[in-house]
């Protein structure tokens, strides 16, 4: 999913809709354009609008998927509040945000800046491009397939334990994904590996549009790398940082494939996340109403997070323009 947002991120028109609404054209002429929106709108209502409304409705019912749903009001939501698995899944979402947003954004800023500012300029740009490709590679793979390879690596008889043996750390051998104590950190490590390439690529693209003279001038003034990083890199690529943080947070809230491939939420729900919990409730426990309630709560959280992010971004842009 990652590269998509690159386009949005690097195209300034995507984030700043024109505030003016020129109303020069008479209404009658514009009305014909509705025809072009028609196929898209019909499809949208059928595939997104109606199913979303359906899920919200089903969250107020008890239903196994067969026969008619029974309306039960807010019972499912009441049940959610007292469900330890539900709370555990949201605690694990926080861990996913650390692994998919916080760590990749911070590391990505450092890596992109080092690749662009040090390696790209002190060595050949091709070196920087090759290193960038290595970090980016996991992003292009079907994440489930990557998850299956990692699941094998982290097995008790997998490659990671053999590696520990080989370097004399055999005492640390462990069933990394099978022990509730280590499963979550292990999944987090895999997610960092999956995610890191996205911020690196976006931030490197962003740095391309920063005026190189800024860096050269700073260098002439004797600013070292850290000075340049704080005074030029960070403020210049703030818009991209927002976009990366937003899209990665949404991805972390929605994460499903890697959990499915690595642990199926186990052991003992140690790695369960809302989307897997909802899937399991829908299709394994056949509790459609309860699964719908989980999905509805997750949807609400995502919408709130997105609105807050976009509001913060708009505010920060306004403040910057003020200076």
């Amino acid at each position, binding site marked *: 999913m990652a590269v998509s947002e690159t386009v949005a991120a690097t195209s300034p028109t*995507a984030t700043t809709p024109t505030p003016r609404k020129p109303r020069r054209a008479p209404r009658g002429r514009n009305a014909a354009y509705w025809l072009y929106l028609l196929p898209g709108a019909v499809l949208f209502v059928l*595939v997104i609008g109606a199913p979303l409304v359906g899920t919200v409705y*089903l969250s107020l019912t008890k239903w196994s998927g067969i026969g008619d749903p029974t309306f039960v009001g807010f019972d499912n939501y009441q049940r959610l509040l007292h469900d330890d698995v539900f709370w555990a899944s949201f605690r694990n979402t926080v861990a996913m945000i650390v692994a998919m947003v916080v760590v990749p954004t911070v590391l990505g800023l450092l890596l992109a800046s080092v690749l662009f500012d040090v390696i790209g300029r002190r060595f050949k740009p091709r070196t920087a491009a090759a290193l960038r490709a290595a970090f980016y590679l996991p992003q292009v793979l079907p994440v489930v397939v990557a998850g299956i390879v990692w699941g094998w690596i982290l097995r008790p*008889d997998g490659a990671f334990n053999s590696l520990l043996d*080989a370097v004399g750390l055999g005492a640390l051998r462990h069933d990394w994904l099978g022990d509730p104590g280590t499963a979550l950190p292990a999944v987090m490590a895999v997610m960092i590996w999956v995610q890191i390439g996205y911020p690196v690529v976006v931030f490197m693209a962003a740095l391309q549009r920063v005026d190189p003279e800024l860096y050269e001038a700073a260098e002439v003034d004797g600013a070292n790398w850290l000075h340049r990083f704080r005074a030029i890199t960070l403020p210049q690529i703030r818009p991209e940082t927002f976009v990366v943080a937003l899209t990665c947070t949404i991805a972390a809230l929605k994460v*499903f494939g890697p959990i499915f491939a690595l642990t199926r939420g186990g052991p003992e729900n140690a790695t369960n996340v809302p989307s897997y919990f909802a899937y399991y409730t829908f299709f394994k426990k056949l509790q459609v109403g309860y699964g719908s309630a989980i999905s509805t709560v997750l949807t609400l959280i995502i919408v709130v997070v997105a609105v807050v992010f976009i509001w913060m971004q708009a505010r920060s842009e306004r403040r910057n323009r003020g200076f």
Partner: protein
Amino acid sequence: MAVTLTPAPVPVHRPVRDRHHRGVSRWVVLVLVTVGALVMLVPFAFMLLNAFKSPGDYSSGGPLSWPTEFYTKGLRTYWTEVNFPLKLWNSALIAGSVAVLGVVVSLLNAYALGIGRVRGRLWIVGLFLLANMLPQEALIYPLYYVAKEVGLYNTRLAVIIIFTVIQSAFGTYLLASVLGTFPRSLLEAAALDGAGKWTVLWRVVFPNLRPTLAVLLIFFFIWTWNEFLIPLVMLIDNQTQTIPVALASLQGDRLMDAPTTNAGALISLVPAILFFLIFQRTLARGITAGAEK
């Protein structure tokens, strides 16, 4: 492109020791980043090492041993057991159809929103953007239920329709903002020549947007190729499944010993890596084009 190839200016007033110091530290940085990049590639090395190892070899030598023979039976077993060519075709058919249809729908939507400037367009664009962020769990059960009712369950067509809409939600958002800045003079000139809206769309807007549409097409293809939840729920048998779903549904199967798992993962990853290599330049160009817009 903006990367300057000119050697860094050497300031005269800088103490010599400092330059020396920097000369060393840049190598330290290079080594550190290279080690990081190699760590990223280690899982691929593990996979390659074990995809061509016989089960006997694996159980006696473990995951790190060098294979004693170039063993391809794991690969062949996986290829025939899951009917890999059919999975490849399913994935390509679904991702290809979604890419084309998704771009067409996005373009039509964005034409009405960005150029037609229909009333309430900001709200409509916002709606599309929000739709793009929805968790698929919020849609899946009604989609699954209706697909069963209308006989689209376990068909590739169902997945194609669903992803056309999901991807075009993003495409509409992106293209609408790009078209919001489309040069009005071009449109007016075409209108003076008596071109209708349909002609303007295909003769004026489409050719100008072609690079952006190409990037969008590739993104839609790759994203759809890599999708998991909806294909997992919708496609349940060998005839319809996609590559990732086929691999995941064999997880834990008796057939999947370590070498076969690795071989299966390897051939499942090859198409994605090929796209990456083929499309890399188009994507880089598209991204820069977007940046300079």
